[in-house]
């Protein structure tokens, strides 16, 4: 019995060593299913099993994408979409930073700002489209408003929770070190909130793309969404799929960039993970 009791530490040590090796050696297996699916898709389209108007071969889609890129239309629409996402993101994030800081840092702000935001959160912002059309019309402002609304909530709640979660004991320690309110915000609150801010920003970016997809299906004359809607009218399924791919790539790329920036910024967390 005593021997059993002494064993677990050794066993856990071995267990932590092994999965790392296994994960590396078998990593390629994770690629199998996607590759097989793509191959299946391509062959069944080529053999006519999948009707072309429903799902063209992936090579067709890539070719259509290449052609669109070549004649500059893809870039043009992409830039329009990116501008909408960028402006909406900036407005939404800016507003969330201001209101979230007020609610998180000031008791009065918490009482005055947080309740209405909590209530507004219950409205699915995409369901606001009809109302927004009445308020701001169907032009650019509709798309930007939708994006900004989608961005605001995840950003606000993560910032608010991040400020609230800061260890009060650290703030006290900073106070006994002679730091005033502003210095405490700079040295304690801001760096302590950064992890939550990054999480909020990643969720917000996801929400931005989602809002953009919906916004660009409403009376648009440019943008990736427009490209897709127009292609649908002419039954160019391959172009519709190009649009989908672009949306997916945008989401993937933005998340990747944010994760890299996050890792560079939060170096101190690596030490935390090492121990």
């Amino acid at each position, binding site marked *: 019995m005593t021997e059993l009791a002494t064993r677990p530490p050794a066993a856990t040590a071995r267990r932590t060593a092994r999965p790392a090796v296994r994960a590396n050696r078998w990593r390629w297996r994770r690629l199998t299913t996607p590759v097989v699916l793509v191959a299946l898709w391509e062959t069944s389209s080529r053999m006519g099993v999948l009707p072309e108007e429903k799902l063209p071969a992936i090579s067709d889609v890539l070719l259509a994408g290449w052609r669109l890129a070549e004649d500059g239309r893809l870039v043009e629409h992409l830039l329009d979409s990116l501008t909408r996402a960028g402006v909406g993101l900036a407005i939404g994030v800016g507003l969330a930073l201001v209101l979230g800081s007020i609610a998180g840092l000031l008791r009065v702000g918490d009482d005055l700002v947080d309740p209405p935001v909590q209530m507004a959160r219950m409205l699915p912002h995409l369901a606001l489209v009809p109302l927004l059309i009445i308020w701001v019309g169907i032009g650019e402002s509709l798309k930007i408003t939708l994006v900004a609304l989608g961005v605001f909530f995840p950003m606000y709640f993560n910032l608010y929770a991040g400020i609230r979660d800061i260890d009060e004991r650290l703030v006290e320690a900073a106070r006994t*070190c002679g730091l005033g309110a502003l210095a405490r915000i700079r*040295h304690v609150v801001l760096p302590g909130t950064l992890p939550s801010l990054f999480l909020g920003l990643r969720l917000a970016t996801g929400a931005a793309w989602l809002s953009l997809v919906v916004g660009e299906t409403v009376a648009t004359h440019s943008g990736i969404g427009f490209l897709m809607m127009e292609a649908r009218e002419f039954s160019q399924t391959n172009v519709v799929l190009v649009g989908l791919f672009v949306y997916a790539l945008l989401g993937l790329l933005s998340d990747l960039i944010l994760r890299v920036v996050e890792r560079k910024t939060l170096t101190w967390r690596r*030490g*935390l993970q090492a*121990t």
Partner: protein
Amino acid sequence: MATRSTGDVVTATGVRRGFGDTVVLDGVDLTIGSGEVVALLGGSGSGKTTLLRILAGLDRDATGDWQVHGSLAVVFQEHRLLPWKRVADNVALGVTGPDVRDRTAAALAEVGLAGRERAWPAELSGGQSQRVAVARALLREPDLLLLDEPFGALDALTRLRMQALFGRLRAEHGFAALLVTHDVEEALLLADRALVLADGRVVDDIAVPLAHPRAPDDPGFGALRRHLLDRLGVPAAA
């Protein structure tokens, strides 16, 4: 009396603090002379930490008169280092000047952590982190050091080393200190005077006239220990 009051770093009279209906401090009087180390003993919930927080300026709801003359620094039970700042930046937090870097290095060397300026707090052990917290306090060259069970969370061996370190630093820098502890032995090893807090008041105030360095088997140590334990409501072993 007049000569003493000029040298006192802490003068407090009638300090009161309640939480809801519970009165934790019910008129505490306290003076700490310049360079004097005072241990504050008491059972858990007796208000030791509350009194320390009041003196540290962290409690705004206390009433009474108290004053700290000179600069103060605090070492808490937990190290309370900012995890996003390297050791050197934690030590120098809030201190500016051209010689901060040298002073930081000197303070770290004094606590036995020379050359660890670039480490992250997460890379340090509990004892090392607490040393950094002590270095952070030392850098401020305080007239009064407030210590809230500073070695309570450490293992027994590390605690002994930290107590020895405290003795050395105190001899060198001559700061006054209020040491909150529940450890009678620690109080007798380090303090010039021991106070016992019970029912919201200081119920005992005894000098510890032992020569430094002290050890628990010094003559006179046992009697003081028994006396303090008695005041703390711990009956002597039969």
